[in-house]
């Protein structure tokens, strides 16, 4: 069937099977040269596509144990974050790291070693995974942790599913007193102001900057910076205190069809950015916000990827090491603004030190994410952005990538050789777990 990532580019004709029992894996491996596991299809590019066999893990969605004393949750890899939240928020627990959508699976979060708005404080998702079970090419199921099969564990965190099929994992949830955060939005004047505000916000667990992507010159990098911290129940206003641990409601709006590709044009993007910045500046200040709106604002609109029309979109996300990030981010923003094409969304976050995953994306510095509709000039623009990122010691996020060049990835991920050695050893020879991404990048 026709399958794509969330960006809807590329679209490949893939054979798809649903794994229902772990025991079926041996047979699938015997009958297919390569395969890749797929969670809920929220990586953007071609990471979860394999024309030969794409193995859906969505039916492997059982919880296996929960310890209410410690918050340790053990579950199958196909369990969705939305399920964890709906089940455990009412009981006063929240995952230590969540990405920008709740429609992802535990296996997917480990494979991409996702980060949230709190990387500077808490690291990536993988830092909170205590152990996992991995089905490898030899048909074995191996328990991997920091003490057992430690190398395979570190290769699997951020390993994009290329070390095997993640079957289950144990992670620690954190206690929360309410489902609300105190969010503060501050409008900044320019990039220096934005970055300075990040540095001054170390005491808040969560932070993100939405950049006005079309501002240039002296206003380059002007942003709305949102910072947040969990609210104790006692600080909730009366209207929220009645149900302090309520769960996010499902999306009420949906994009029913592919939007015409002219919808997101230079003018509409400019207008959207200007309005948003203006509104944020006026409405700034502190207010209590539900975790759903704070962490997953785009989840309110189901199938929002259709806004970009039939040809889809790409999200370009790179990280730049701290020493270079001020100059690098400025150069990237200049390049996009000069192009005049404009990014619909431009998001900047602060990253703390890199984690243990050999192929994990984060490293200490800043990460910039830009959404572009897929058009004729888009690939050339991305290539230019890649060049800038590379010149400043940066690298791209494989979970978002759809078109980076193999050599850039090789240079950006210095532990690739080590990763591949472990992958080969676990496979006892040929790589059996492969995706369109790993083929394209010759990983």
């Amino acid at each position: 069937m026709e399958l794509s990532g969330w960006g809807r580019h590329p679209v490949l004709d893939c054979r798809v099977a649903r794994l229902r029992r772990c025991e079926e894996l041996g047979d699938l491996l015997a009958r297919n040269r390569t395969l890749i596991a797929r969670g809920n299809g929220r990586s953007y590019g071609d990471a979860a596509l394999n024309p030969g066999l794409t193995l859906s893990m969505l039916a492997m969605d059982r919880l296996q144990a929960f310890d209410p004393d410690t918050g340790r949750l053990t579950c199958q890899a196909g369990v969705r974050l939305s399920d964890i939240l709906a089940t455990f928020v009412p009981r006063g627990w929240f995952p230590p790291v969540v990405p920008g959508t709740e429609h992802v699976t535990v296996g997917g979060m480990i494979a991409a070693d996702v980060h949230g708005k709190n990387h500077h404080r808490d690291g990536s998702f993988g830092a909170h995974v205590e152990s996992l079970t991995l089905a490898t090419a030899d048909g074995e199921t191996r328990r991997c942790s920091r003490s057992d099969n430690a190398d395979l564990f570190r290769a699997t965190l951020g390993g994009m599913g290329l070390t095997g099929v993640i079957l289950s994992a144990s992670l620690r949830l954190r206690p929360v007193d309410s489902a609300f955060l105190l969010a503060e939005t501050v409008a900044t004047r320019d990039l220096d102001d934005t970055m300075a505000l990040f540095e001054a916000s170390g005491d808040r667990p969560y932070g993100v900057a939405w950049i006005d992507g079309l501002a240039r010159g002296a206003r380059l990098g002007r942003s709305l910076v949102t910072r947040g911290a969990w609210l104790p129940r006692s600080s909730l206003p009366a209207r929220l205190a009645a149900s302090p641990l309520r769960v996010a409601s499902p999306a009420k709006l949906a994009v029913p069809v592919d939007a015409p590709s002219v919808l997101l044009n230079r003018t509409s993007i400019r207008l959207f950015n200007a309005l948003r910045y203006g509104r944020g500046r006026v409405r700034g200040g502190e207010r209590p916000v539900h975790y759903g709106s704070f962490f997953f604002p785009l989840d309110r609109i189901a199938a929002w990827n259709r806004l970009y029309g039939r040809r889809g979109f790409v999200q370009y996300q790179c990280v730049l090491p701290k020493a270079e990030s001020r100059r690098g981010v400025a150069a990237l923003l200049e390049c996009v603004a000069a192009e005049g094409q404009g990014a619909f969304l431009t998001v900047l976050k602060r990253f703390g030190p890199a984690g243990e995953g050999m192929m994990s994306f984060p490293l200490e510095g800043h990460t910039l994410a830009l959404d572009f509709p897929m058009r004729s000039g888009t690939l050339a623009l991305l290539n230019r952005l890649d060049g800038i990122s590379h010149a400043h010691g940066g690298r791209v996020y494989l979970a978002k990538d759809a078109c980076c060049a193999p050599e850039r990835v090789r240079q950006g991920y210095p532990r690739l050789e080590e990763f591949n050695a472990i992958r080969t050893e676990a496979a006892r020879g040929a790589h059996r777990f492969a995706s369109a991404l790993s083929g394209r990048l010759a990983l």
Partner: protein
Amino acid sequence: MKNTETALIIGATSDIGRAIARRLARDGCALQLAARHTEDLAGEVQDMRARTAGAVTAHRCDVLDADGGVSLLDALEVLPDVAVCVVGLAGDQRAAQADGAVAQRVMRTNYVGPALLMGALAERFEHRGRGVLAGVSSVAGDRGRASNYVYGSAKAGFSAFLSGLRNRLAGSGVHVVTVKPGYVRTRMTDGLDLPPRLTAEPDDVARAVVIAIRRRRDVVYVGPLWRVIMLVVRALPERVFKRTRL
């Protein structure tokens, strides 16, 4: 549903049964999970125990047993407040046309067993004077079609049985819900090319079931389009209908 309630789910290892159990667990219900293969139930019991503070028990129940699986009810320590029957088997229409044994299996799985079970539960609920019975039937039961009439006729029987029960028990304190999903992405439909707009996820069915139980609904379709589609399908004159390929 109040968190002191006990819910029995018959067909608890099915995708829809699991999704319903999950929603009830979030509401804090105690759960009685019944299915044919008890070894498969172990994983579901583990799952539900992680989700709810309420008690979770596992029970064997095979609607193909001579008594339709009704002996299950004697094995329950407490009579549930809510009972949901999700048992079903699509079967292969062509095989069922050619082989009476296949057809019988489809009929017994979708009609005889579930009806006997719901009937036996209704007796006990009526005696107690309260309870909710929810049966998951199918739009396939609304009109027999060439592509699946063996399955459809059994579901039609189940729908009619539930309708009769509801009629009989009106005013008794016992409520009967009939849920009619259209296409659902489950093990039953694995590998079929289903129209995305008309295909629900198991959790969509579960949400409809739980809301219908709470609000004491009578007959619910899953997804608003299906009610309209089946209205049209039912309204077509037989002369026209028999020539369609639906």
